[in-house]
């Protein structure tokens, strides 16, 4: 029972990070119908930037509780610039090109970012400084520590904030209009390029937050961390129904839970035949199973084929 609770806690924390990254994928997809394959690398850059800023600030004697928000903001700003640049350079010129062309430039951007990061930050793992006492708490036999609590609450708050932006503001209305019908939105006077740029920047800011959270949670950052994280988050976005914000959140949390429970119980379920290193297989199997029964994801629209 304690194990179950522990796995659920771990899953929800990990899942909330997936959800934040998945939101970045899903927002871009919703508006441009494009898989922003480089998004995982933006998360990595966010984590690295935050970590560098944090190390520098702490070195100058800035108190941890001040250094943390400053470095987070710096990382977010850096990622927003990066996201803006990626869209301008790699996607905008190809908006009317064959569908797979931007996929290739996205892959190119990923490779470039990964290797730039390796040049700047090296191949080694970077340890995340311990800023707070990180008190563990016991709930019903399971342990949850301060960082996990902060991550979870922050992620939920950011998601709630995003929903408000998308559903209650002018900007959000413009975003939804562009997602619905670019041409019509343009005729109604929406500046499409601006909306797309802002979407990329918003998604990248979320990616920076997620990057910081991941490295704080595991105490590590690494130039290669974006790849698998991006892959998982994209899976989560598809699981929930890509293009749908609530779907990305649900998909992220679910994927976190599935992985965590899968890793915990897969051994028992298969009589020890499959160990916890099949965690990823488990996640993909669930994804395939969900898509077989709901081809547009859990919350995706059922697109009735119009003739």
């Amino acid at each position, binding site marked *: 029972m304690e194990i179950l609770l522990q796995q659920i806690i771990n899953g929800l924390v990990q899942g909330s990070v997936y959800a934040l990254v998945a939101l970045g994928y899903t927002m871009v997809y919703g508006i441009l119908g494009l898989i922003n394959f480089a998004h995982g690398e933006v998360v990595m850059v966010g984590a690295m930037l935050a970590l560098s800023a944090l190390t520098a600030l702490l070195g100058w004697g800035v108190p941890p509780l001040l250094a943390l928000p400053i470095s987070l903001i710096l990382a977010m700003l850096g990622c927003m610039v990066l996201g803006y640049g990626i869209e301008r350079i790699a996607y905008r010129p190809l908006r009317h090109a064959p569908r797979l*062309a931007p996929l290739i*430039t996205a892959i190119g951007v990923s490779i470039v970012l990964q290797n730039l990061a390796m040049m700047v930050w090296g191949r080694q793992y970077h340890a995340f400084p311990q800023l707070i006492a990180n008190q563990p708490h016991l709930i019903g036999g399971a342990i949850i520590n301060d960082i996990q609590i902060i991550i979870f609450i922050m992620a939920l708050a950011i998601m709630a904030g995003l929903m408000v932006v998308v559903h209650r503001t002018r900007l959000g209305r413009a975003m939804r209009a562009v997602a619905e019908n670019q041409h019509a939105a343009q005729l109604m006077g929406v500046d499409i390029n601006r909306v797309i740029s802002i979407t990329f920047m918003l998604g990248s800011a979320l990616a920076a937050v997620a990057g910081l959270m991941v490295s704080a949670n595991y105490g590590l950052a690494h130039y290669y961390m974006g790849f698998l994280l991006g892959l998982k988050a994209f899976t989560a976005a598809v699981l929930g129904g890509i293009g749908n914000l609530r779907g990305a959140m649900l998909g992220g949390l679910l994927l976190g839970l599935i992985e965590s429970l899968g890793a915990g119980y897969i051994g028992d379920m298969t009589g020890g035949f499959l160990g916890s290193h099949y965690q990823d297989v488990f996640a993909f199997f669930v994804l*395939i199973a969900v898509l077989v029964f709901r081809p547009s994801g859990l919350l995706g629209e059922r697109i009735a084929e119009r003739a």
Partner: protein
Amino acid sequence: MKLPVQRAKIVFWLALAALLLLPFVTDALLGRGWVRIADFAMLYIMLALGLNIVVGLAGLLDLGYIAFFAVGAYCYALTGSPHLALAFPSLFPGGVHLPFWIVLPLAALVAGGFGVLLGAPTLRLRGDYLAIVTLGFGEIIRIFLNNLNAPLNLTNGPQGISRIDPIRVADVSLNASQEIFGITLPSVHLYFYLFLAFTALVIFISRRLEKSRIGRAWMAIREDEVAASAMGINTRNLKLLAFAMGAMFGGVSGTLFAGFQGFVSPESFSLMESIMVLCMVVLGGMGNIAGVILGGVLLALLPEVLRHGIVPLQQALFGKTVVDPESLRMLLFGGALIVMMLYRPAGLLPSRVRRRELDTDEAA
């Protein structure tokens, strides 16, 4: 543009002669390592042509294509090496050691079967949903290869399987130099000619398929699945057929790879490899066989050219190695992908249809 038949024939024979001489010229000018690179380039071309059936003709975005290459490679690795004898001495006391030419068609069938296995649950999925599922499938295969060393040691896990029997043609092993008509042919040259023959076969099959009733049905599905099915095309069967055919190409090249390398490990079948093959298809010019070949050659050679060019270049410029050559190489490679795509969004050699369309657009 249309060459008279006579001239086309001359061009063909000249090209063939050039290809036959290529390993010797490469060996003399650049060294034997480059002949080996050319061998690998041909394996990539075969893979890219196989993927082109799935992505270019039928329009099904497959991000896990390397899995079929892996299936083919492990088929031969298991049946052509001492591994099973070591892992299960009581079952296979002397090892299996099936001849390559028996394994090859079997591996193609097994890979084709995996293609159907992947295709079946994904039939209702569209575009990007299909992409993520195929990606997941590729990862599943790789993770299984990586972990199926316990409790039963099927794949020998991350260490991979070594000592795979070399490919033999007419009882002549390709792993040793052979002397023919007084000319010594090193092993890499022999494999070059073998792969050249297979590549030619794959090109031939691709062309025949493309210009057939089946090829047209695939293109119809790519263009508009609903309209295709309203025209009486059984989209389910034809999509499965596309997956199976593409997978068979992948399986065949995987088998060749295993025999050539003598060693396979899960590392060779990462997602990055799938992406690489997809890049070859898209960058070269989706749906156009010549374009796909060009894409395969370029992307197989570019990293090697960069690998060999970067260190000397840095030495010349700065007198020492300033930046880690490996990451600089990949950095330039990524940059090249972006730039090439920005300048030629439809690929370097767009398919005949797209090219015609560009012509008309210019004329209009």
